[in-house]
């Protein structure tokens, strides 16, 4: 009941938006722009012939692959750059130049290098999510409180213990934050990447629906589904923040 109360204003605004949309479409007698009902029936149509699941699956597979590759590269690289001053001084300027380049700008090069198969969007996802995660991990190492490193030094533990029991656990919350940002960007990018040239994925579905007969009901259905899946992905990453290993960071 409490939760319902909390969510009520958001629900009300959403309902109001749908109502305004509906009224606007009926009032203008638009033939191309669909009503909410049209979007709903369009979605059911896609669900029935199974194409929607195929597109969602394709997009998620690309995001999953590119994102996991990025995690595998970013976390060790970030730890290394955070710990070794020379590595930071050498690599950080390059990353700071590469980081602000929009993943969209990489599309021509991705096509040149990887063609129009799955490898291109995966590469774009990788490139877009790897930098925020490297940065967050590096910052995480740099902001480990000195008193903890001193204590570790005082007990004279081995490098292995220092890393597994102090450095990595201390940085883990920052890594999770980086992953949350990285996955958000990855999801943003996959849809853009799929709009270029591919036969599957939610981005392709949107472009294809427009090109093949101005099916704007399916365009909007695709957009809403992208939004909802993005929300779910962020929710999953937020759940990671509650895991035992990082919970200490959010206590108090």
């Amino acid at each position, binding site marked *: 009941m409490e939760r319902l109360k909390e969510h009520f204003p958001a629900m009300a605004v959403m309902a109001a938006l749908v109502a305004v949309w509906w009224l606007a479409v009926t009032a203008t007698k638009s033939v191309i722009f669909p009503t909410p009902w049209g979007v709903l029936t369009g979605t059911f149509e896609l669900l029935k012939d199974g194409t929607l699941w195929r597109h969602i699956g394709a997009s998620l597979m690309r995001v999953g692959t590119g994102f996991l590759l990025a995690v595998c590269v970013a976390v060790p690289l970030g730890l290394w750059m955070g710990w070794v001053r020379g590595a930071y001084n050498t690599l950080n300027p390059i990353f700071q130049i590469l980081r602000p380049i929009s993943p969209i700008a990489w599309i021509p090069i991705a096509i040149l290098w990887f063609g129009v198969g799955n490898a291109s969007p995966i590469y774009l996802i990788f490139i877009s999510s790897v930098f925020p995660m490297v940065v967050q991990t590096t910052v995480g190492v740099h902001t480990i409180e000195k*008193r*903890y490193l*001193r*204590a*570790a*030094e*005082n*007990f*004279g*533990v*081995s490098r292995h*213990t220092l890393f597994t*029991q*102090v450095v990595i*656990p*201390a940085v*883990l919350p920052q890594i999770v934050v980086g992953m949350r940002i990285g996955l958000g960007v990855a999801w943003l990018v996959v849809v853009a990447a799929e709009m270029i040239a591919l036969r599957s994925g939610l981005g392709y579905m949107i472009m294809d629906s427009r090109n093949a007969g101005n099916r704007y009901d399916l365009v909007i259905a695709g957009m809403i589904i992208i939004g909802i899946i993005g929300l779910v992905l962020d929710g999953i990453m937020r759940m990671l923040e509650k895991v035992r*290993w990082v*919970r*200490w*960071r959010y*206590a*108090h």
Partner: protein
Amino acid sequence: MRTKIEVRALKKSYASDKGPLPVVEDVSFSVQDGEFVAIVGPSGCGKSTLMNMMAGFVQPDAGSVVIDGQPRSKPDSRGILITQYGSVFPWLTVRENLMFGLNGHPIANKTELADRYAEIVGLKGFEHSYPHELSGGMLKRAELARALVVKPDILYMDEPFSALDALMSLRMRNELLRILEKERHTVMLITHDVEEAIHVADRILVLSPRPTRIQATFEVPFPHPRRLASAQAQELRVAILRELGVDRLGD
């Protein structure tokens, strides 16, 4: 009794905008094995710098710290430093924190040893708790236990209890004395609380304002448990406060 720590003509300056700022100027003293020495001095006088040099975290500009006849140049687990800020790892449980210092030591039953020390400091039943689930006093106990479990020869304590409220601070002092009765450690304690020093120490060094040197030394000959309200203890307190430049005591 043999000499545990020998501090020989330590000097330290820090760089500042106006050139080098001398912090510690020619400090020498020695500490016997098992002795409890307290250091009091005005705030900002360089007490912590002195302690950090003794523990090996800061290198002196001149002079040396000799422990058991060996010059000390870097920290190790024979001398554990405890500060007011605390350094119990928040991502490890109490037990894991206590076992941290035992890593790499060829000791069987590390868990048992850790749990025994948790019990000694009164943390039985909290072995699996995380630091954020503990109160400030319990956190200090965990820190003390983590230091004691590696059986250090020397405990360096830099205002260890000053972040606690007065009552908890007093409790922790009694706890510390109770533990030191059972296992003998050499203890160096920095404090701004003269009464605390008289309560626990065998000897009290009074430091001068920066750049600091030893201004006076007081023996504390009273047997434990001490009565701080006794006439001699009060006399000693007045004498130490006078050294620190406090003449009017309001009583």
